[in-house]
Structure formats: structure tokens, C-alpha cells
């Protein structure tokens, strides 16, 4: 594979990472998308905006999140030295809030009086509802009916926070369908409404903007690991739904030649069964939800349903920057099944006293697979993207844990 001099320059002016990305949206939305882009560019160069971000990230979200040496897991696996980046300790329990603070401030700057969002696991919905409560902006969350069933605690939280949760029954009743409904709402309410996308996907500038807001994760890791170990990590691991927690961890390190990146997709019941959410491992490039990227689709370009035990990974697409990083070979994309993730969920809970989100458990399972072979000298940082409180029902049901 040819090495590029930088992997951090994208996207270009048309929102492309290589052939991926772009602005594949209806004309009705286009002027607003351009407006978001303009406002975001201004905000990025505005010290006052940065100061406001920092203020909320430190006093409200609780940043920096700790970098924790997972000593028992390290000993158990007998190989790489494993650190967890503790995004689960953020206010609202996942990395999603980093992006919501950023976009919430942007919506306010644009004078929007209503915020909509899609959610899968409910973590992004909760984070959005939280920021809307904080900034006093009415909030509507679209959530698939299947996800409402399996992430009930988060539905309750969103409602308590004052959000209106609109169930989506179309299609498979999961994240993809919630995105469709949110886009339909947005088209009908462009004047007043800001669409707060929860992952590094969608039309330009969202993939880049969400990435930038999540880069706080990788920036902190750089400082923290240098403080703890006196050097940069060798291996970074994160799970992938749309790809925001992974890109947030990876991006600041992409040009460090000696760092290896492993991103973990959901293999569901197994890639060979067709019941999975592994767009990069088993999909092909197409155009959906405003961007060109790898998708799960049939030979006629119809989008297929994804499957994962984890609602936050249950999406037939992926952010465009990951598609590009995949094709360039800079990041390795692997997949972990429902069963492997569940096992890792229990392992982490027992060994470290940390109940991880099922999404993050996919990353833990991958660490379990590779740590032994890496050897004791290898410094590995894994993004523990969220906590597992929301998943207790699901896990209890499939693992048969009684009260």
C-alpha cells in the first residue's frame, strides 16, 4: 500500500474523502447545508466558540475523561498493555455528548429554534435531549420502534429531559429508518430546525464536523498516554457504528507512522449468515443519507437491513472518511459477532468492574482476540465509548441472568 504524506487533510471543498462523502441531498435542504458549513467554518476560527466548547466540556461533560490502565484485563489476556479511554464516564454515559455540545452551540449560533435527531442506542438521543434541556431548545428524537423496545431506559431518559420521542415503524424500525424520518422532518421544517446528526456520516460538512468535535478524545489520549508511558501508543482500537468514536480517537494519530488502527464493525450473527452490520467487511460503495460510502445493499442498489445486538451499531452504512481510510489501507476493519461481544461484556464487567455498552463490548472482544499476539511491549488504547446501563435488559434476556 502506498503511504500518503498525510491522512488528515480531508475532506476537500466538495466534501470528498477520495470518492466518498459529498452532498447528496434534495435541493430543499441544500441551502441550509451550505449555511451549516459556513457557520461551522466561522465558528471553528472563533476563539469565543472554542472557549464556550471548553467550558461545557470541562464543567458539564466532565472532561478530560480518564485514561485507565486495565490491569486485570491486561494480565488475563497476557499480551499488550491495555488502556481504556473512559468515554463511559462522560455526562450521559457515552462519547455522543462531545458532538452534541458542539452542534448544540452551532444551532444556537444559527438562531435555530428547534432541534431534531435520530438515535439508535438512544445514547445520541439522550445526549441531544440533554443539550436541548441545557440550552432550552425544543427537541424531537426519531427512534426505530425496535430500538425503543430494546433501549427502554434511554427512551425514558429522553422523555424526562423534555424531548418528544417519535417512534419510526417504517422499514426495519432501526437507525437507518430513523435517519430517513429525521431527514423528512428537516425538509419540512428547514427554516426553524437544526438537524443534529449523531455520527460522522451524512452530507458534508457533517462527517468532518462531527469528527472534529470528537477529536477531543484522541487529543486527550495523546497527552494522557504520553504522561503515563512517555510515548505514543502502538495500537488504537474502537467500535464502529457510523464511526464517530473511532474517528475521534484515530484522527489525531493518523499521520503517526508507527501507530496501528483497528476498527470493529458488528458481525451480528456472523458475516456468513447475512445478518450483520459490517458495511466495510461485507458491503460495497453506494449513496445513502447524503453521502457516498460503503453500504449493505443488494445487486439492484436497494439498501438491506443491518443486524446487531447493539442498537448503536445496527446501521447498514458507515461514515465516508472510514470508507476512504479502508480503501487506503490506513485503518484495519474487522468484525465481532453478537456472541463475542456479549462474552466480552461479561469479561470486562467481572475483571474491571466496568459495565460497558454493548457497542464498546465489540471493541473489547477485538482487544481480547489480538492482545495476546501483540506481546507485552505493545501499548494499546481502546475507546470505551459508553457505559452499559442501557443494555442491562438486553444482556439479562440473552444471558439468562435473573434478578
Amino acid at each position, binding site marked *: 500500500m502506498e503511504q500518503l504524506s498525510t491522512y488528515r487533510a480531508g475532506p476537500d471543498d466538495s466534501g470528498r474523502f477520495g470518492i466518498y462523502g459529498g452532498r447528496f441531498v434534495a435541493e430543499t435542504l441544500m441551502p441550509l447545508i451550505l449555511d451549516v458549513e459556513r457557520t461551522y467554518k466561522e465558528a471553528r476560527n472563533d476563539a469565543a466558540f472554542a472557549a464556550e466548547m471548553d467550558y461545557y466540556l470541562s464543567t458539564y461533560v466532565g472532561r478530560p475523561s480518564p485514561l485507565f490502565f486495565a490491569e486485570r484485563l491486561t494480565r488475563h489476556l497476557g499480551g499488550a498493555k491495555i488502556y481504556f479511554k473512559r468515554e463511559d464516564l462522560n455526562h450521559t454515559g457515552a462519547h455522543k455528548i462531545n458532538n452534541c455540545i458542539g452542534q448544540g452551540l452551532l444551532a444556537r449560533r444559527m438562531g435555530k429554534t428547534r432541534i431534531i435527531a435520530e438515535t439508535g442506542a438512544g445514547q445520541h438521543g439522550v445526549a441531544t435531549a440533554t443539550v436541548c434541556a441545557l440550552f432550552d431548545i425544543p427537541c424531537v428524537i426519531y427512534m426505530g420502534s425496535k430500538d425503543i423496545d430494546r433501549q427502554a431506559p434511554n427512551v425514558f431518559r429522553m422523555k424526562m429531559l423534555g424531548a418528544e420521542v417519535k417512534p419510526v415503524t417504517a422499514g426495519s424500525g432501526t437507525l437507518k429508518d430513523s435517519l430517513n424520518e429525521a431527514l423528512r422532518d428537516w425538509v419540512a421544517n428547514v427554516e426553524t430546525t437544526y438537524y443534529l446528526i449523531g455520527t460522522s456520516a451524512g452530507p458534508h460538512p457533517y462527517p468532518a464536523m462531527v469528527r472534529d468535535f470528537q477529536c477531543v478524545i484522541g487529543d486527550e489520549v495523546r497527552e494522557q498516554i504520553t504522561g503515563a508511558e512517555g510515548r505514543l501508543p502502538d495500537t488504537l482500537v474502537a467500535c464502529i457504528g457510523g464511526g464517530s468514536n473511532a474517528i475521534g480517537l484515530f484522527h489525531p494519530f493518523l499521520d503517526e507512522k508507527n501507530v496501528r488502527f483497528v476498527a470493529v464493525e458488528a458481525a451480528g450473527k456472523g458475516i456468513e449468515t447475512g445478518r450483520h452490520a459490517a458495511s466495510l467487511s461485507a458491503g460495497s460503495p453506494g*449513496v445513502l443519507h447524503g453521502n457516498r460510502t460503503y*453500504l449493505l445493499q443488494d445487486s439492484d442498489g436497494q439498501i438491506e437491513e443491518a443486524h446487531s445486538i447493539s442498537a448503536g451499531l445496527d446501521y447498514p452504512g458507515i461514515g465516508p472518511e472510514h470508507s476512504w481510510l479502508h480503501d487506503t489501507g490506513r485503518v484495519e476493519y474487522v468484525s465481532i459477532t453478537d456472541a463475542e461481544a456479549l462474552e466480552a461484556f461479561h469479561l470486562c464487567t467481572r475483571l474491571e468492574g466496568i459495565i460497558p455498552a454493548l457497542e464498546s463490548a465489540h471493541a473489547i472482544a477485538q482487544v481480547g482476540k489480538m492482545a495476546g499476539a501483540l506481546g507485552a511491549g505493545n501499548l494499546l488504547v481502546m475507546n470505551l465509548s459508553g457505559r452499559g446501563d442501557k443494555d442491562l435488559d438486553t444482556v439479562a434476556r440473552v444471558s439468562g441472568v435473573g434478578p
Partner: protein
Amino acid sequence: MPVTRIDRRFAALRRENRGGLVVFVTAGDPDPRTSAEILRGLPAAGADFIELGMPFSDPMADGPAIQMSSQRALKGGATMKTTLELVADFRQRDGETPIILMGYYNPVYIFGVDAFLNEAKAAGVDGLIIVDLPPEEENEICLPSRMAGINFIYLTAPTTDEIRLPRVVEKASGFVYYVSITGITGTASARIEDVRKAVERLRRHTDLPIAVGFGIKTPEQAAGVVAVADAAVVGSALVGKVTENLDEDGKARPGLTNAVLGFTAELAKGVRDARLKGAA
């Protein structure tokens, strides 16, 4: 680019001094046979142009009526290949009525842009509307389709401002489609006064004919629209006639085709009478 059936039809309408009726149906809805039957009957029922929906699993700009029609078609086995075959079948009997394929980019992209344009041209397609391809993405298929002699029809919306409008109409051909509401298909209807103002604004930027769609549900509304624009597009209301004429298993009831064509005739009458009244 060469003169197309779309250009010829608008020229004929101008000679007749009347507005045009554009009808939207989804290819393969509710089943291949009925869909072909509907298509064949549309010109005689008074449709001046046919917009044929290319079914897609995730129609983001469409309301429930067209979402359901797309799903019915897919369930009935519709693919890009069967959609193009449907057009070819229609063309064997009708060499004049323009057919505009409308839909989302992914099925076209996966078919392959060049293969798609070749086969669409050969089947007798005259125009393309791809909802999720704004001018910013014109390299994808807008420019190639001009080369292939197929009109790429651009959508303009109430949100398309003065600065943007020239860029949107610059590469347009065939006609300009005005989406009269900020919203999805089959929901709200615009006030005719707003449509009139919007069309006047568009005319300052283009000499192309202007068709207005989204939210036009009745012959009266269609008549109102052609009093101020060159054509009115009716989609969800027509597709609704398909939905109304399905049995419990979702199969076409015997009167389905006649219901769709009958409603088309009512719309056509509304459209044809509009200018006469206006002139009287």
C-alpha cells in the same frame, strides 16, 4: 443538446395555449402487469407527461403514499431492469408522450451511470429527476445525461434563494421543476398566490418551461397551478388511487387501473379547462 420529446411536448402545449399535466406513478406498482396497463392507458386518459418512479428502499423525500408504492413495487420484484423494460414496452405503442424517470441516485449508481444512460435512452426515456443530486453533484449524472441526449431536470425549492437560483437553472434542460412546499411528497399544499410569485421569480432566471409539483391533489388545484405555470405534477394523490384499490392481501382489485386512469382524466379536464376559463 438535441430536441427531446419533452421539448416537443411543451412546444405543442404552447401552440394549444394550455398547461400540461404531469402524472407520477411508481414503476411496478402494485404489480408488473397492472403497472404496464396503467402506463399504457395514461396518455389517452390525458397525461401529457409521465414521471415514472424508480422504486427505492429508502425514499427520503417522500411521504407515506409514495413510500408504500415503492415498497409494493419492490415486493413485486421490481428492479432497474424491469423499470427500463416497462418503458420500452410503453414506447412500442407510444412514440410521443415523454417519460421522465424519477427517483434516488443509489439504484442508478449501482446499475452503472453509463450503462443506465445507454439503456434508458434505448428504452425511450426522455428525462431524469434524481432527488438527491443537487447541482453540487452535477458530475455524477447531470452532465453525462446531457451528452446522452436525456434531459436532466433540476428541482428548485422555496429555499432556493436568488444567489443560488442561477446556478441551479444554468445546467437545466427540458423544464425546471418547482417543489412548491418545503416538505416531502403527499403532505401539505402550497397557496396558489405563493406559487404564482415563485414561478414569476423563476421566469426571471430561465426561459425553460416550469412544472410545479408536491401537494397537488385535486383537479381544481392542478387547474390553479397551470394558470400560473406550464405544467402541474400530481403524484401521491394518483398513487393513492392504487392504494385504495388493493384487497386485504395487497393485490390489485379489478377496478384499479380504471380508478387511476379515471382520476387522471379528471385531472386532465381540470388542466385543460383552466386556461380556457382564464381566457374567457
